[in-house]
């Protein structure tokens, strides 16, 4: 084989005491698709960020086309032909496709932007991707799949020799995924190297030539043959016995705490959902992205409006107009996005704990001592590694999540809803979160856990409610539930 276009040798990355990458080496050749695989927090995003110049490695060297390569900025990487396409698309919706494709490097003639040339060249890149829409069209209103292709066209216009695709199919349907793969194959045939990051095992087997597995920041294994059984790959990703992480579940009580009857979202994101959660029971909610899981639990927590159906707590009908209503009744939520919904990250931990309990100070003055003591006790009770006067942004993901949970548990809630409780939390810290969740059930709290991580839902739930495209596909008991039965319902 020829020389690789990109070589990484001994790449490490540390954030303070946290080492997210350890001595990773990787080669990418022209005209091949390499899958980068690993659990959340395995270091995939960090590694792709380093390759694309948005982060600098703490140690290690990179070679690009035979020359030493240490991009100081994404711009420098792009100039050399290395383009990262983010999970969240970075397009300006109000500008035309052509303008987006040439953003920041508009072709000029006599010092003014040459719009004709811009449109012509953008159109050329679009047709290279079999995308037959006028380049003069606004990006707003394009389907997600087409926006993805516009991003790729943008990369191609930059003469990309290496494309990093970070979960490109996360928001795509089956047919759209196929179309995208056709284009990726075409690029591969043209000699473009592709690093493909995804969680979807089937896709990876379809599109990639080679699979590199990261675990806890280390490169643990490489599979040169995409015919390797999925099970083998997953074992390599997880790398440990799964049972060990989850504490044993307590027996739920007979008494039903939360009953949801025919619940329908005002925006139609879920329809006619009916279930109940008993005291001391953990109900898992599973489903694919866009199945309406988050929307459902947000409605139960009063954060989003409903158009039909009933929520009953201890047999009493609730009408929730705001999160404050739900909280007063004893329903609290640990939201999906810790940094944007759970915490004010630029504020101290103590402040964050107090924000969720301001009404309990009802009319009293809050002395700094009261605040600090409250924070200190909450922190020690929930095993947060930190002090009340530390900024929330200084904590690791796991400790931040413990703060978000702790801020609610100080109120003795009846129902606790956790949406993606371990997203972005490193594996070691997850066990601590599971411990807290199971402890809640032991005390007779009704718990709902939403997760995209199938192992997590299976490991921590007494029963699992599966949603598919906003509809209730079924509820599985713990003894019926496994990855196959859940996925079957989820993909109905």
């Amino acid at each position, binding site marked *: 084989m020829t020389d690789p276009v990109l070589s990484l040798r001994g790449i490490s990355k540390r954030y303070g005491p946290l080492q997210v990458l350890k001595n990773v080496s990787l080669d990418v050749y022209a005209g091949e698709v390499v899958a980068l695989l690993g659990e959340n927090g395995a270091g995939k995003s960090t590694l792709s960020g380093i390759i694309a110049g948005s982060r600098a490695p703490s140690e290690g060297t990179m070679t690009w086309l035979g020359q030493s390569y240490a991009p100081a900025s994404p711009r420098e990487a792009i100039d050399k032909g290395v383009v990262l396409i983010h999970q969240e698309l970075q397009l300006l919706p109000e500008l035309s496709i052509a303008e987006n494709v040439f953003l920041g490097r508009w072709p000029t003639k006599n010092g003014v932007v040459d719009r004709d040339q811009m449109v012509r060249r953008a159109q050329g890149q679009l047709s290279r991707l079999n995308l037959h829409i006028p380049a003069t069209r606004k990006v707003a209103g394009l389907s997600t799949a087409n926006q993805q292709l516009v991003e790729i066209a943008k990369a191609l216009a930059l003469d990309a020799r290496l494309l990093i695709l970070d979960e490109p199919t996360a928001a795509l349907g089956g047919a759209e995924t196929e179309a995208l793969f056709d284009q990726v194959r075409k690029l591969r045939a043209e000699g473009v190297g592709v690093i493909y990051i995804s969680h979807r095992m089937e896709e990876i087997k379809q599109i990639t030539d080679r699979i590199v597995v990261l675990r806890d920041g280390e490169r643990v294994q490489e599979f040169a043959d995409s015919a390797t059984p999925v099970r083998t790959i997953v074992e390599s990703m997880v790398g440990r016995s799964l049972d060990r992480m989850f504490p044993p579940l307590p027996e739920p009580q007979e008494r039903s705490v939360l009953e949801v009857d025919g619940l329908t979202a005002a925006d139609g994101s879920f329809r006619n959902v009916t279930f109940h959660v008993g005291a001391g029971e953990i109900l898992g909610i599973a489903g694919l992205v866009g199945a309406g899981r988050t929307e459902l639990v947000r409605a139960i927590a009063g954060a989003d409006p409903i158009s039909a159906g009933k929520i009953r707590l201890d047999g009493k009908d609730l009408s929730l107009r705001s999160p404050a209503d739900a909280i007063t009744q004893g329903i609290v939520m640990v939201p999906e996005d810790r940094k944007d919904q759970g*915490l004010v990250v630029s504020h101290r931990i103590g*402040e964050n704990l*107090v*924000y969720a309990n301001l009404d309990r100070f009802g009319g009293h003055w809050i002395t700094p001592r009261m605040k600090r003591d409250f924070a200190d006790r909450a922190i020690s009770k929930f095993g947060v590694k930190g002090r009340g006067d530390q900024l929330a942004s200084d904590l690791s993901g796991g400790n931040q999540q413990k703060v978000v949970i702790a801020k609610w548990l100080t109120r003795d809630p009846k129902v606790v809803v956790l949406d993606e409780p371990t997203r972005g939390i490193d594996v070691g810290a997850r066990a601590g979160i599971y411990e807290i969740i199971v402890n809640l059930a032991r005390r007779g709290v009704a718990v709902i856990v939403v997760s995209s991580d199938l192992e997590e839902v299976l490991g921590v739930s007494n029963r699992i409610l599966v949603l598919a495209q906003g509809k209730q596909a079924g509820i599985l008991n713990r003894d019926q539930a496994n990855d196959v039965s859940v996925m079957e319902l989820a993909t109905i």
Partner: protein
Amino acid sequence: MFALDIKEQGRPSRNVLARFSGATGPLIGLLALCVFLSLGTDTFLSVRNGLNILDQITVLGIMSVGMTFVILIGGIDLSVGSVLALSMMIMGWTANIAGLPMGIAILSALVASAFCGLIVGLLVTSFRVPAFIATLAMMSAARGVANMITDGQQIVGFPDWFMMLAIDRHFGVLTATVFLMLAVVLIAWLFLKYRPEGRMLYAVGGNPEVARLAGINVPFVTIGVYIVCALLAGLAGIVLAARLDSVQPSSGFGYELDTIAAVVIGGTSLSGGAGGIGGTLIGVLIIGVLRNGLNLLNVSPFLQQVIIGVVIVLAVGVETLRRKRV
């Protein structure tokens, strides 16, 4: 088992310096400015001049408190100068043209001001108009109404006791207006720091979605803050009327910028969620001392504007750099 009692208490605090964090840079700047002016002029460092400065900053001080609240929740209020003028004109009209007692005149001025704040608050929350636009509109509308009341004419001559509020130094030290400003600052400081309702402003400014999901009524807080800001602008108008013994509809022109400058120099972040009254007080003092000192040094008013511009950039720039380093 999990539940925590809010009011249980433990050991006392140790870190005194931490309480002033955030405003240390401006505080050092203020002290440096005072030292420089004390050495550079022989008139600056005197009790009399100190009291003068306090008199000069009453209007700005009261307005800046309201602006601090607004900026803390991530908003902005461009209408304070116009609301001040409207408040003055309503007070003057009620007292001198309608001939009602001063008490009623002052009360109607304050009610009208608060009403302006209510409108802005409703525009921002219920109609989702950006605060910049809503208050820009209010700035224009309130100024227009202020002018309409007397067709642009000023009203002069109020009862003696009213004028004396800004002149008579009680115990030979503080005028009633200075005392009023200090009381407003103190109450606002205590409110922001120690009341649950005050902490809500930080939560809303830090991240409104986090605040909402934490059970805080964000629209209610927002409307309340704009009402308080407008109310304080109106109160500042009354103080200004006492100081001038007259009211005119062109008063307070450009005050919104001075006010925003004082808040920003004091370290309150324009993106919301960080800052406080302590910093704002320092910001107000910096502007007051600077104006006073530059006058003593016979610097032309035009050059003064340039210098204040430079100070704003310096204060905010240094603070931003300092935070980046940390």
